[in-house]
């Protein structure tokens, strides 16, 4: 291998790619734009829907008795309507819940028995669920006041029959809170962009060059095939790495501008805290992404060289996106202190596991060493595979 030749190939490939607007759009600008927009859209939709769900709650009250109707009316958002077919109206979204008071309510209450009230709602519908919560809260209030008055008659206080007050307290630190949302989204975006960023370049630099017939001319120049492959590999890896960086930047931008765009209250619901982003963590994340980019790029270049055309290469390379996604899903349900040691030795999953730990504020040197070591080995294997595939004569001979 000759470094000068590699640099010539690299310089040419970068110049070529710099002029390819299509690749830049998909590799760099799209994630830069799309991720913040997507996140803001989701949060905006969620908060505005939730807002709507709380500000206006049309319901049906069946067998209404004054006591219940008064309690419900005490909440301004609740609006009692009388559609012809309440269940249909609920399904059509015209109303949010059907409150049904048993016909014997008044008698049962006066006889100090239990009276039944049902709240019909649709758990799959967010607004209906909100209505259920609000109505449930109001009726629980009514329940408590009825209970208190019954207890007063026998000289017992509410406190006397409530020996325990059990309340959940959120003890997570800021970093841990950040981890809950970011622990899945961040590794997924970062690892996926290593693939999506490198994919167009891997297709073009190998299958594209093969299809255009330029590869054969290139291989008849007095240059070792490995110098050509190395130049191409660096270019493709750079694209993957650049795309990952662009995803990181766009995500940071999204988080920092979120409060201004969707309002501080909506943004605070995300529990976003960027305290995990220390300089050391960023460097670690970048090193691992660098390894992952080279590994994916080598394999993708190798696979791209098997394809006879540009289109065929695109079809062959698409599964790599899943190869980046599946390992992230594997760590999604695990809390960071439960990640099995073996995960730090599985390609891609090792990176996802380490990112998750960092996001939760865990810096475990042994795990980091495992991840860096195993990643370096995977890179070597991937490069060997790519170089084997690149040496085949069928690279040149079509059909």
């Amino acid at each position: 291998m000759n470094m000068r030749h590699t640099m010539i190939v690299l310089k040419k490939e970068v110049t070529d790619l710099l002029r390819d607007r299509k690749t830049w759009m998909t590799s760099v600008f799209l994630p830069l734009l799309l991720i913040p927009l997507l996140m803001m859209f989701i949060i905006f939709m969620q908060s505005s829907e939730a807002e709507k769900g709380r500000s206006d709650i049309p319901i049906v009250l069946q067998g209404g008795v004054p006591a219940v109707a008064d309690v419900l009316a005490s909440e301004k958002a609740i609006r009692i309507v009388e559609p012809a077919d309440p269940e249909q109206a609920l399904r059509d979204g015209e109303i949010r819940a059907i409150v049904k008071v048993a016909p014997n309510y008044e008698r049962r209450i006066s006889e100090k028995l239990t009276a039944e009230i049902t709240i019909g709602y649709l758990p799959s519908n967010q607004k209906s669920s909100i209505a259920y919560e609000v109505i449930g809260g109001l009726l629980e209030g009514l329940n408590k006041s009825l209970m208190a008055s019954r207890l007063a008659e026998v000289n017992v206080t509410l406190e006397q029959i409530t020996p325990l007050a059990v309340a959940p307290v959120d003890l997570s630190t800021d970093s841990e809170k950040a981890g809950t949302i970011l622990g899945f989204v961040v590794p997924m975006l970062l690892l996926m962009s290593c693939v999506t960023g490198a994919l167009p370049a891997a297709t073009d630099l190998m299958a594209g060059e093969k299809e255009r017939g330029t590869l054969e001319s290139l291989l008849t120049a007095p240059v070792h095939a490995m110098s050509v492959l190395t130049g191409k590999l660096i270019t493709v890896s750079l694209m993957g790495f650049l795309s990952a960086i662009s995803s990181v930047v766009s995500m940071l931008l999204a988080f920092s501008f979120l409060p201004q765009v969707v309002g501080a209250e909506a943004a605070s619901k995300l529990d976003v805290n960027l305290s995990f982003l220390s300089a050391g963590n960023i460097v670690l994340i970048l090193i691992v992404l660098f390894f992952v980019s080279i590994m994916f790029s080598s394999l993708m270049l190798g696979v791209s060289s098997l394809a006879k055309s540009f289109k065929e290469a695109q079809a062959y390379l698409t599964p790599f996106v899943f190869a980046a996604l599946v390992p992230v899903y594997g760590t999604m349900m695990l809390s960071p202190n439960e990640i099995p040691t073996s995960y730090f030795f599985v390609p891609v999953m090792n990176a996802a596991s380490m990112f998750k730990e960092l996001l939760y504020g865990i810096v475990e040197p042994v795990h980091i060493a495992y991840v860096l070591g195993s990643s370096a080995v995977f890179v070597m294997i991937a490069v060997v595979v790519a170089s084997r595939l690149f040496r085949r004569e069928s690279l040149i001979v079509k059909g």
Partner: protein
Amino acid sequence: MIRLQNVSKKFKDFTAVNDLSFEVKQGEVMGLLGENGAGKTTTLRMIATVLQPTSGTISLGGHDTVKQPEQVRRQIGILFGGETGLYDRLTARENIAYFGRLYGLAEDQIREQTNALAKRFQMEHFLEKRVGGFSKGMKQKTAIARSLVHDPQVILFDEPTSGLDITAANMIRQLIQEFRSEGRTVIFSSHIMGEVERLCDRVLILHKGERKFHDTLEALYREQESRDLDEIFMKMVGDVR
């Protein structure tokens, strides 16, 4: 200059070239004739070091194509098939310079060579434009200039006139004649008997990977007792139809 000794090339079960031997002297223009699949491109690719012979040896200017591929590549200029093998997003000059650099030329040498080639092929007005928008003729000129940037002594052209219009094809034919007068060695494959008759000192007729004839055209006419190259060619390779 070029010597093939008992060269065979197999792709799995298929024998593309079988026990082929021939020699091309310096300054000679040799035509490679044969139907599609006769082994012309495979032969040229083996000489160009892109493919390795399954058996036999090929030497070019005293260098073995398998053992010293880089020395061989330095001496040859290649233009393969209808595909011009250019990068659309680079300008004509950048395409030429890229190969100049890979051949180890210095930057000022590349500039001089490119300017000289641009003048020779009248491509000054599109030299700085990107290849993507070029006509087939402009691309062909750029590809030729690129294959000549390192001033090769051996030229391998695989069906260089296929798909070209009359003007562009004539330019290539004229170029081959110029190569001969410059003392360069040329092997070119073709389907067009007229250009083979006009340009070649000797011809090699391949059929199913085997040598059917290798000598001057005059010798071929004498042997076949005819001066109609089409007819001779059909008689020699058309037996299967």
